[in-house]
């Protein structure tokens, strides 16, 4: 009786747990604008003030939000826009235009998109008519007609701002900033970028005033927490430090070391031979023949412990390594050169090799010894 009860209790508990897991996953995966803004409150306040001034007073502004990837730039602006739109007098008055440098790859597309989002009069349905030049003059005229007090402020949000700076002549940026600096329709231009060197770009006026800097990626933190969260089970209902450690290890795992673990002994031997060649020739490139010779030397010495493979078999193993991208042909080697003599480079570091060997299952002792020193036979 009691056991059954506890069983049902367990079931309920499991349900609760999975629900908690689901909620937490959602929080980690989606950039919800509800999340708290830690560390960027000051910037947030600044941004919201600025947006409010554009929306309420009709003052033109421009902001560049700079920060490394995953530092919460998009979240910051989304949060700000959400709060702005909750203000009643603002929500009906503000037009928003969202552009992304990865989507609007040139000014022509960007202009059409702006016209579409502003729903100007040359939009029929979803299509924007007219040539590039017509669109530009139309849009400019539209924006020029407005003035500070009477027309609707427009908030331009340019994601991946740096890509817009690569457009020809920077026509779009010039005009946006020109509008923001003259008595036309009030606009707020908000750029989001992870590049710091933008303000050095030619021609874009020095209106990019404000730099926000948020350190360390939130996204990687979320991934880490997700991994830890997945380990929560009814029998293990709370996240512990050990879970986090493990998740961290998963996150920071060396992907190449994992590949090395799955290699055959012959391939390991080839890698060790390459490592020795690297040591001897100081990072100079090598070819298959050199590696094969090195391998032969080792086999002749330790004939009893390592099977002497035929050359085509060794060649096959060598090509497999190349497919795994553990070795890589040098650039500018002619294609018609014999494969044995094509120059190669190893894409593994010595420390990586040694670490991988230590964890390699059932590694022959001789091979391990050979790896530590090319002179171990002496």
């Amino acid at each position, binding site marked *: 009786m009691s056991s059954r009860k506890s069983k049902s209790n367990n079931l309920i508990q499991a349900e609760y747990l999975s629900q908690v897991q689901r909620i937490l996953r959602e929080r980690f995966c989606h950039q919800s604008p509800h999340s708290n803004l830690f560390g960027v409150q000051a910037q947030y306040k600044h941004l919201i003030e600025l947006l409010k001034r554009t929306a309420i*007073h009709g003052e033109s502004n421009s902001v560049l939000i700079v920060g490394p990837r995953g530092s919460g730039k998009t979240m910051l602006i989304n949060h700000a826009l959400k709060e702005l739109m909750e203000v009643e007098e603002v929500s009906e*008055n503000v037009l928003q235009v969202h552009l992304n440098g990865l989507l609007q790859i040139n000014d022509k597309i960007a202009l059409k998109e702006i016209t579409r989002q502003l729903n100007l009069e040359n939009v029929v349905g979803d299509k924007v008519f007219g040539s590039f030049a017509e669109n530009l003059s139309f849009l400019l005229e539209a924006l020029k007609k407005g003035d*500070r007090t009477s027309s609707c*402020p427009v908030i331009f949000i340019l994601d991946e701002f740096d890509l817009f700076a690569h457009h020809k*002549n920077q026509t779009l940026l010039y005009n946006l900033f020109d509008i923001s600096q003259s008595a036309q329709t009030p606009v707020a231009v908000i750029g989001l970028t992870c590049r710091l060197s933008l303000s050095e770009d030619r021609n874009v006026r020095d209106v990019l005033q404000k730099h926000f800097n948020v350190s360390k990626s939130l996204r990687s933190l979320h991934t880490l927490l997700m991994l830890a969260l997945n380990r929560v089970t009814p029998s293990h209902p709370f996240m512990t430090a050990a879970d986090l450690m493990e998740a961290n290890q998963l996150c*920071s795992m060396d992907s190449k*070391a994992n590949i090395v673990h799955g290699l055959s002994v012959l391939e390991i031997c080839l890698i060790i031979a390459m490592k020795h060649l690297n040591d001897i020739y100081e990072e100079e490139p090598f070819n298959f023949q050199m590696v094969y010779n090195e391998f032969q030397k080792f086999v002749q010495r330790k004939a009893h412990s390592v099977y002497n493979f035929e050359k085509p078999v060794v060649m096959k193993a060598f090509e497999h390594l190349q497919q795994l991208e553990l070795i890589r042909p040098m650039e500018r080697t002619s294609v018609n050169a014999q494969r044995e003599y094509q120059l190669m480079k190893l894409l593994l570091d010595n420390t*990586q090799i040694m670490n991988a060997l230590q964890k390699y299952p059932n590694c022959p002792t001789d091979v391990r010894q050979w790896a530590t020193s090319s002179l171990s036979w002496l």
Partner: protein
Amino acid sequence: MAYRPTRLRTRQTYSWIGKPLDRKLHYQTYKEMSVKIEGRLPEIDLQVGQFVLIEGDDDENPYVAKLVELFEDDFEPYSKKRARVQWFIRFCEVPVCKQHLLGRKPDAQEIFWYDYPACNSNINAETIIGHVQVVALAPDEVIPMDLKNEKTFFVKLSWNEKKFKPLPPELFAQLDKLQESNPRCQKSMEAKTKSTESPSWTTAEHVVKRIESRHSTSKSRQTPSHPVTPRARKRLELSSFPRTHNTRISQQTSWALLESPGRMKRKVAFSEITSPSKRPQPDGPQNSSAALKTPEKAGEIQQCWAEDDKKASPDGCMILRTRVPALKTTETSEERTFTPVRGGQKSLVVPSVILKPENIKKREAKEPVQDEATSTPRPRIRRKSSLLTLNRIRQQLRFLGNSKSDQEDEEFLPVAEISDSDSEEEEASTPPLPRRTPSSVSRNLRSSMKSSLQTPSKTPKKTPEPRTPRHATPRIRSRNLAAQEPANVLEEARLRLHVSAVPASLPCREQEFQDIYNFVESKLLDHTGGCMYISGVPGTGKTATVHEVIRCLQQASQANDVPPFQYIEVNGMKLTEPHQVYVQILQKLTGHRATAHHAAELLAKRFHTRGSSQETTVLLVDELDLLWTQKQDVMYNLFDWPTHKEARLVVLTIANTMDLPERIMMNRVSSRLGLTRMSFQPYTHSQLQQILVSRLKHLKAFEDDAIQLVARKVAALSGDARRCLDICRRATEICEFSCQKPDSPGLVTTAHLLEAVEEMFSSSYITAIKNSSVLEQSFLRAILAEFRRSGLEEATFQQVYTQHVALCRMEGLPYPTMSETMAVCSHLGSCRLLLVEPSRNDLLLRVRLNVSQDDVLYALKEE
């Protein structure tokens, strides 16, 4: 607005009151009509002679007009109830470029008598919204300010598309009388109508003369006349000839005579043949010189009309066939054909025509003649016969336009949308501002003709089609709530410091201002042209100064101190392509639109021929360096035009670099640019200070020291006034932010400004490094160590990784795996702190620092 019944929601029924005054076949005149609005009791009585509001483009500002006639026309396809009106025009409907001609600010309720005969006054009666009161005032009278209702408008001046003139005395008297007298007395009404129509009549005759003279001078053949259709007839009346019962009857009869089995056929033919005009016509002639050619084309048309007639109509207009393309014979044959309807109404009888598809082009090509003629009437020698012919041509054109059936609408809509053709583009865009394109009213003769030719959706129709983009008015939605005014000193200061705020005067640029002013003024006075090149780094007030000069000159020209001139501005950055500059100039100069190539030709012709424009043109080209092309033809043309004596063109060019002419221009281009150069030096700190002080006049928001500080800081760096203003604006924000009481924020102090300057000029790299993670910092250290070891400024990732591992070991950090380190490296690369190769190179990718090593060291040491 109050006086606008919600037309969209309520249904309105229009009905005639009383018996028709005057009844003809398919045509009855009435004197009164009633409008019943659903759900509202008092019906509105509309009587001839009253002032009415007419539905138009803009719901807020319906058109104002005076009812001249109410009639029912059975031939109108959409609405049989028609009205003839005399238009009034609002100030906002006057083209922007001409608005300054008024010379004063218009009063809110001021309208102008629209003295423009080429305007279509025949409207659908069902677009009338309601009554309005119009009061005529003498030119010196002041418009009463105590307006109780918005329904009263005041008219002082008349506008004829060229200038504002005081109302003619008789008209004034009549209007004055009208507003007092009972509108029911029909007799006086009619008299008035006549007198009001008379001025327009005379001008219209000018038009005819003009066309006629063109024809006669070019020694062309005549175009035959063809049977009139009822709709063409209706248009006729508005053009030039006084309406009488007689004419109408004779028209009617002539129509009846010509109403033959062939007609139906012809109609069908029309709907077929008009569609080919969709084809883009790349070389439609558009200006006067092109127009001179057109009579020949008309002759060609005639020929093929005749051909067609052979096939199509075995009836009365058969005679056309015999027409030889020679002036004399045409005339005689014509006279013979239409003997029954001789006299005043000869011209009214126009045989219908059939165009073959390939001739549509020609027909369109003829329209510029009309444009020209209607817009610039000029008296010339007049010959009766050719006048007659010309009238017929006009009627044909109109007839052709009208005979379009509405099932073509769908076919035609895309025309305006996709066409790039010159002629169509031009036509669609010619009427600059007072474009009456409501559902049923088309005011301009020009536009009405065109719209009927090109976009039939403009012809009377109750349900408006989705508008073609070309006719779209560029406008951003206006805000629902008014913008707040600044509440405290800091906000006020911020408003004044905004770059967009135009200062009343430009301090510190007096010398430059005077130089430019003298240059332009002298050219204006001498009626010559010239070029000037203005250079200076950004934010030194180049454009602002030129604008100021132009503003002053415009004031001076209004005071008649200098001759009037036309001002055009183009900006290299606002063009998608250098050659688009021609399009923009042409459009701003004439309102026409054309392709770049064609616009260049038209402009060249305009500037090379004498007398094409009486006024001097002042052209400002901003960001000149963007107009550079491989051939440099754009720059060449810009500087070449002013060298022609007839051009009367003053070109002011602005660019940033002082040596632009030497650096990028070919000799032949820079030679034409001439030697008039001006260079704007960066502002010194005292000048910047003066600018700030003048902007903040009477506004105590900044400490004096603070202003001096920012002026010096900026002057030391760039002398960019924009940046100076931006910093000050930011400082007010910081100040507001730091004092928590928003009502009484203190002065902006040096501390606030220093903070702003710091923000603006601080290196973003150093902040970025300081804020980066431990692993990133250690990776940067490893890079520095590797550089020092190898003595090179570049290292492979593998080398750096080795260093990195060693460093981590020393500092007691956990061992960094290769993947982690790679992620760190690409992260730094995406911030452009490092310059890295694409990561497929893996271990071998080369890494460089994008910041100086000292900066990195400095940033890392801080901790």
